[in-house]
């Protein structure tokens, strides 16, 4: 891989704070990383700041949140200082995010097909018929059976896994340079999950997209991603090649938090009475 070129994304010392009546919630506390044309996994427990990291990149941190960073560059351009309008244009077109709660991010009073078609027309010159056809192709690509029927369904009429694929289709139709996928396959059955990952994988290899893959499925991240950041309490505990995540021969190098996460997993064929849970060490956030 030739990585000497400018990375797609460089983030230095990112902080996300929420000023609440009961004090400041530090959701992200000084995270730094760069993204090339690769699959970068982010794992870590609930509330560790994974989604807020994604949203901060897109400038979608809700009030009363504040984003601070020393640097945040998209292909060398400074996201923090560029005009809001320029940044807004990047969103959806060049940098997209598949949100964690697909149904919540969809418009409840518009059919899912029309929503994808609209997303396409915002970014591409196309008439209604072309947009509809692109949409049906996209729905088929994400392994939706009967795309014609699903096109006409409202969000409350699709199953959990269909909702997730609708969101993925909607984000991919704009052909972004960076896709941030927040738990994009958590509601999919394992076979469909692999088919959807294959699509993302092809986009990384053939269109050189950069993918940030947020997930709590450690085995999936290990088998799918190139690198992985392990987050805890808004900080990166460690960054490593994904293949090392659960590699028995690399365990000595693992952060205790990562080892703790691995220990919590139920395993087929190895019955455990009670699952181990994490013992957290305040030192990790020091």
């Amino acid at each position, binding site marked *: 891989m030739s990585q000497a070129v400018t990375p797609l994304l460089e983030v230095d010392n990112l902080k996300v704070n*929420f000023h*609440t009546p*009961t004090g400041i919630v530090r959701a992200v506390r000084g995270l730094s990383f760069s993204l090339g044309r690769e699959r970068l996994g982010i*794992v*870590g*427990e*609930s*509330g*560790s700041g994974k*989604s807020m990291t994604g949203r901060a990149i897109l400038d979608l941190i*809700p009030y009363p949140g504040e984003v601070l960073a020393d640097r945040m560059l998209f292909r060398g351009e400074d996201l923090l200082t560029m005009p809001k309008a320029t940044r807004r244009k990047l969103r959806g077109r060049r940098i997209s995010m598949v949100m*964690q*709660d697909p*149904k*919540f991010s969809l418009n409840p009073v518009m059919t899912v097909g029309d929503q994808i078609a609209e997303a396409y027309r915002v970014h591409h010159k196309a008439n209604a018929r072309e947009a509809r056809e692109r949409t049906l192709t996209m729905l088929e690509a994400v392994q939706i*059976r009967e795309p014609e*029927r699903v096109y006409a369904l409202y969000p409350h*009429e699709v*199953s*959990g*896994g*269909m*909702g997730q*694929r609708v969101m993925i289709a909607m984000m991919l139709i704009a052909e972004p340079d960076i896709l941030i996928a927040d*738990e994009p396959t*958590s*509601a*999919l*059955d*394992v*076979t*469909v*999950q*692999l088919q959807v*990952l294959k699509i993302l*994988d092809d986009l990384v290899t053939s269109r050189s997209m950069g993918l940030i893959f947020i997930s*709590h499925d*450690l*085995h*999936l991240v*290990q*088998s*799918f991603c190139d690198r992985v950041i392990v987050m805890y309490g808004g900080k990166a505990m460690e960054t490593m090649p994904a293949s090392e995540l659960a590699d028995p021969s690399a365990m000595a190098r693992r952060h205790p938090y990562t080892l*703790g*996460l691995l220990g*919590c*997993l*139920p*395993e*087929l*064929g190895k*019955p*455990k009475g*009670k*699952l*181990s*849970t*994490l013992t957290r060490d305040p030192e990790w956030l020091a």
Partner: protein
Amino acid sequence: MSAPAVIVDRLNVSFGSSHVVRDVSFEVAEGESYGIVGESGSGKSTVLRVLAGLNQEWGGAVTIFGKAQPKVRDKAFHRAVQMVFQDPYGSLHPKKTLDDALAEPLAIHGIGDAERRIARALSDVGLPSAFRYRYPHQLSGGQRQRVAIARALVLEPTLFLLDEPTSALDVSIQAEVLNLLQALRQERKLTYILVSHDLAVVGHMCERLMVMQHGQCVEEMSAATLSARKPETAYAQALLVASEGFRRQG
């Protein structure tokens, strides 16, 4: 042997012209934990919704705790049978604090001692009591799912319908929630029906399970068969292979 807690006999559900659940039959013993796995869109949530009395258009027979179930259920039913939904955002009211969300079911069912029950349910799911006055949008995805579980727990149900209860949770919280569910089952003789696409979770939690595809039950098996990776149908085998992770060709 005690009578089964749940008997589903040739259940059929259609939405307009699409027939999404086809002749599904199964039984769950009292105190048993029964898993449902299978293809996305194959009708798993729909089966649970029918059992919970949330879907009024169905054919076939459903018997719960010895009682044939009518389409519309009474209040006692809605206390004894609780469902945890797949989509944590959708099941919480955006303008209600956690405290409201937990107090509401107690008020509806005229149950006193709300203070203590709410505090206990929150600690059971590992949420700090400082979260009581937060709104759903101020929580992470996994925190919202724990609120949904706490909300079902406060009513102390006897049949628990769990739709992907931990798919939004990280592995440490998942372990805590699964341990909690196991302990509750032993303590209170609860019966569970658990939908999950995580075969390891189903293998850990359930004694038996059903595999669904295209609205049908394609195979019923014991957890031992699952753990030994010896299912009969090609579809169930494909699920097991896929659960091993991603393989890049070439």
